[in-house]
């Protein structure tokens, strides 16, 4: 690397826009989890569906459109925990990135 390239490298600015998008990709992937042989994505959509289930058990379609018999409260708890854990981690990383120049 020549001197000019080294200087330009040292003066590189933090890419806030790309970092935000990467965090979104990273944490959306981390919302995925396995339960009862099905694959699920934790988040408001799943939690709303579960909140609308009146009984203790239900049959839902997983990410791959496979019907899976689930315990509503168990899946709700797993989804809630996963969603909040990952959202908290997302916030922490977002705040660290916000301070970079």
């Amino acid at each position, binding site marked *: 690397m020549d001197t000019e390239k080294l200087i*330009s*490298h040292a003066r590189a600015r933090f890419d806030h*826009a790309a970092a935000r998008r990467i965090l979104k*990709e*990273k944490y959306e992937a981390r919302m*995925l989890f396995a339960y009862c042989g099905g*694959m699920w994505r934790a988040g408001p959509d799943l939690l709303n569906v579960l909140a609308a289930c009146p009984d203790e058990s239900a049959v839902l379609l997983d990410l791959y459109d496979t019907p899976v018999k689930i315990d509503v409260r168990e899946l709700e708890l797993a989804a809630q925990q996963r969603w909040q854990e990952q959202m908290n981690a997302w916030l922490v990383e977002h705040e660290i990135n916000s301070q970079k120049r």
Partner: protein
Amino acid sequence: MTTGALLFAFNNEVTDYVQMAAWSARRIRHHLGIPVAVITNSRNPVLSQQFDQVIHAEPDSGGTRFFEDYDSTVTWHNAGRVDAYALTPWDQTLVLDADYVVASSQLRFVLDSSRDFMCHDRAYDIAKSRYLDELNTFGEHRLPMSWATVMMFRKSNTAAYIFDCMQMIRANWDHYRALYKIQKSTYRNDFALSIALGIVNGGTWRIDSVPWSLASILPEYQLEQISNTDETFKITHRAANGGNLYLGVNGMDFHAMGKKHLGDIIEASV
């Protein structure tokens, strides 16, 4: 049922894929907790300490390819990937490119799924965070691309059909290349996999894909590891105004398409 990772490592003129695979094997064991087998033509006795299983095979060249980071055309020993099904010692196998950097336990999700075969069907450029047509389609018809960088399969009829089909495509590459109007003559696993999945799924192009996109670092970007003990990788790329921009990637797997930069990181860590 046994579960493990499978890596292919055939050195060429410029890249030490065996060293890359050994570095990758350590990361796979650490993050995913599964054993790693390597398919290689190297007879180095140290391999038995670096990998859980060593399977010897001769390299199968897919032709030559120009690599921007090396600024040269090198031999590409990639065509043996279609033999993964026959050669794997595991019941459930995670085939990874040696240049796929495992930096999280995210692939556990794929291992936990009950599907017989999974791979990525979408890749994006990590620095620009955009889905590129040239990464996600192939041939003049712009058919949807599937990526052979990460493949999970179980010993099953479905996986056997896919790999048999890939072998047929490799054996008749010129025919399939003409049929799908692929300009470059070099055989590519991603194309063979995409065509095979199309055939096996009856031309519907619907596959059980990994439900997140393959993060890719293009060869023209500078890739560095902050330190040997730090899991953060720094990517520097050129902005539209000519200045340099950088970003850090931590706890996230990615495909390092620039072999030279990854090779430099591994060299520094040895």
